[in-house]
């Protein structure tokens, strides 16, 4: 349906030749933009509903109350995936978890997965790479958070927290009970939709940039162009892509459409996925933010272990795709 609308608009209404580069690029642009905006709304509304019934306070209390015998990490990672990510919340969240008595490793499981698997990135992945790739991305992201958090938890890293954090942890806050009324679904919905529209509106400029650049690559670079430079057999391509991606702070909404166009022109899908994980999951601004609660050594261990895991995942993706 969207496809025929895009064809009608570009080839019919604007009268562009459907075999011309300009026509194809524009068609790709219109089609992808509409499809992704629709998916963004769908995902942000779904995530909003989950979040309305399972707010972060409940998740924290849930993780605090019981001993989950090693499942804590998986649960924290899963919760990280279904909670909307906002970088300005990550420090309060980190402190709140630790103060609630949740171990550092479990808190890190949450912190790793939260940006990596988020509703905006998932909507983009579904729209651009399809459901199968999205599922593989989401599951590997959740497992990555689980395993890396588990390993870091075993390393007794508490001594690398900033001094004020250690001091502040002397006083625990057991339960955060906010006066959440028992609202009905129809009472919750307006707020959820408002928030979903806000998130979608916020990323649309980045979407235009991403799809615009993607459309240019799509229309003007010959298919298979990159195959001459980057192949699956080049063992350095994945680590290089990850090292490039980690410090970058780019919006997933821009990066994913560009990646798709690059994959089409010959960059291996696994390498592209590893790159997007590095861009979305870790960034320089996040490291500066974490500096407020972690000593440099802990940030280095945290970023290092996540980067190495993403490199392994990149090789694995290239192997299966």
């Amino acid at each position: 349906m969207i496809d025929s609308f895009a064809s009608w608009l570009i080839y019919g209404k604007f009268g562009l030749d459907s075999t011309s580069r300009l026509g194809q690029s524009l068609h790709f642009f219109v089609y992808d933009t509409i499809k992704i905006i629709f998916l963004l709304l769908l995902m942000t509304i779904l995530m909003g509903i989950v979040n309305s019934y399972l707010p972060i306070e409940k998740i924290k209390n849930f993780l605090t109350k019981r001993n989950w015998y090693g499942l804590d990490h998986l649960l924290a990672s899963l919760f990280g995936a279904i909670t909307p990510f906002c970088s300005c919340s990550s420090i309060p969240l980190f402190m709140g978890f630790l103060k609630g008595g949740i171990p550092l490793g479990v808190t890190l499981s949450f912190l790793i997965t939260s940006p990596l698997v988020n509703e905006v990135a998932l909507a983009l992945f579904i729209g651009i790479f399809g459901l199968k790739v999205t599922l593989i991305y989401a599951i590997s992201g959740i497992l990555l958070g689980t395993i890396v958090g588990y390993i870091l938890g075993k390393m007794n890293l508490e001594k690398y927290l900033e001094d004020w954090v250690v001091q502040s942890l002397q006083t625990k806050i057991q339960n955060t009970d906010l006066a959440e009324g028992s609202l009905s679904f129809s009472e919750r919905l307006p707020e959820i939709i408002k928030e979903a529209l806000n998130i979608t509106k916020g990323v649309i400029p980045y979407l235009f940039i991403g799809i615009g650049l993607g459309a240019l690559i799509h229309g003007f670079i010959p298919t298979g162009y990159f195959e001459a430079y980057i192949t699956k057999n080049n063992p350095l391509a994945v680590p290089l892509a990850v090292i490039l991606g980690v410090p970058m702070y780019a919006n997933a909404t821009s990066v994913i459409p560009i990646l798709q166009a690059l994959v089409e022109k010959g960059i291996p899908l696994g390498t592209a996925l590893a790159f997007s994980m590095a861009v979305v999951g870790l960034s320089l601004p996040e490291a500066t933010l974490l500096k407020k609660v972690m000593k440099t050594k802990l940030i280095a261990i945290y970023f290092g272990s996540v980067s190495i895991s993403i490199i392994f995942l990149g090789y694995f993706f290239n192997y299966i795709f």
Partner: protein
Amino acid sequence: MKNIKVLGPGCAKCKQLEKNVQEAVSKLTGDYNVEKVEDYQEMAKYGMLGSPGLVIDEKLISTGKVQSVSELMEMLK
């Protein structure tokens, strides 16, 4: 006098909440003291998990939400 604190490191939502609180307070007749808290150490004391956090008389009321001016007026009455 009611003591109101808006906890937030300075994201768009935090600024909006502070603005709404100021507006709500200016429309109400009571005695209010509004404070913006940007220090993470200070924020951690309230056990908040998402920003912005709204504290009324040292009690954390909500996190991650931006209440409208009319909602705030109702809460602060």
